[in-house]
């Protein structure tokens, strides 16, 4: 399983979306790595999952930024910038795929990078939101 409990930040809305993201990414990787089936047979499935992932990343980042705003999170601008860079990374690949290079090799590369970016972002950067929420609760 790709999701680890240590990634929880203690805010249900965010944690649930993170769990969903990891679950979808895991499914995506499983299809990309399912070498028993010919690539052509997996292609529609890959495209469909990828489309969902791409939209869900944006949806989740928007929700997370909205939440940060609602709690007066001080590092919101740094975090927004990290989201922007993340989305740019995804979009660079979307462009490559739209230009027709929808190959197994390219998809392996993309899914691997997405996995590491997500682990780093959720495992490191998002943890700071949880720490801030906790510090506020202690104050209150």
């Amino acid at each position, binding site marked *: 399983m790709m999701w680890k409990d240590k990634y929880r930040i203690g805010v249900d809305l965010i944690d649930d979306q993170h769990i969903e993201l990891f679950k979808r990414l895991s499914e995506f*990787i499983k299809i990309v790595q399912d070498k028993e089936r010919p690539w052509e047979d997996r292609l529609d499935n890959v495209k469909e999952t990828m489309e969902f992932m791409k939209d869900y990343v944006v949806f989740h980042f928007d929700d997370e930024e909205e939440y940060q705003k609602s709690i007066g999170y001080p590092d919101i601008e740094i975090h927004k910038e990290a989201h922007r860079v993340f989305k740019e990374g995804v979009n660079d690949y979307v462009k490559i795929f739209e230009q027709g290079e929808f190959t197994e090799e390219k998809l*392996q590369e993309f899914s*691997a990078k997405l996995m590491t970016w997500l682990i780093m972002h959720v495992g490191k950067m998002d943890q700071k939101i949880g720490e801030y929420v906790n510090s506020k609760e202690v104050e209150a």
Partner: protein
Amino acid sequence: MKAEYVNSFYGATQDVFRLMLDLPVEKGDLKVIEGMVCSKETNILLGITGDLKGSILFGFKNNTALEMVKIMSGMELNEIDNFVSSALGEVANIIGGNAVTNLTSYDYICDITPPQVIVGEYKSMSAANKKSLLIPLKTDIGEFDVNIFLVEK
């Protein structure tokens, strides 16, 4: 070779391994070696530019490399394919990025170039007669090397 370089790369490697793989990393005895040679089966080369110039080479045995990506993905993997090598390349890239951040505390402003994954042992990566530093590292999933070749501008 300055301790600052070693501390920056070793520290970054420890942080990233703990965060991404839940693995503690222990440092073995440093060695000065001639040139920069791929000592293990799967190697990742990072270029460093800026106040320091040179390369960093990570060397993993295939078993260790597969185990690392298995921990991240939660999936059984049995070959070094593009998924595995891209994931390793990205881990090295993240370590390099963190190391470059660490180097700023020693007043070195550097940047990294995109990782290159090289599969195969004993390929020489730099001209002979240049010394580089090898840091052997130990983890529960095997040993690996970080090779540092840096010169000040």
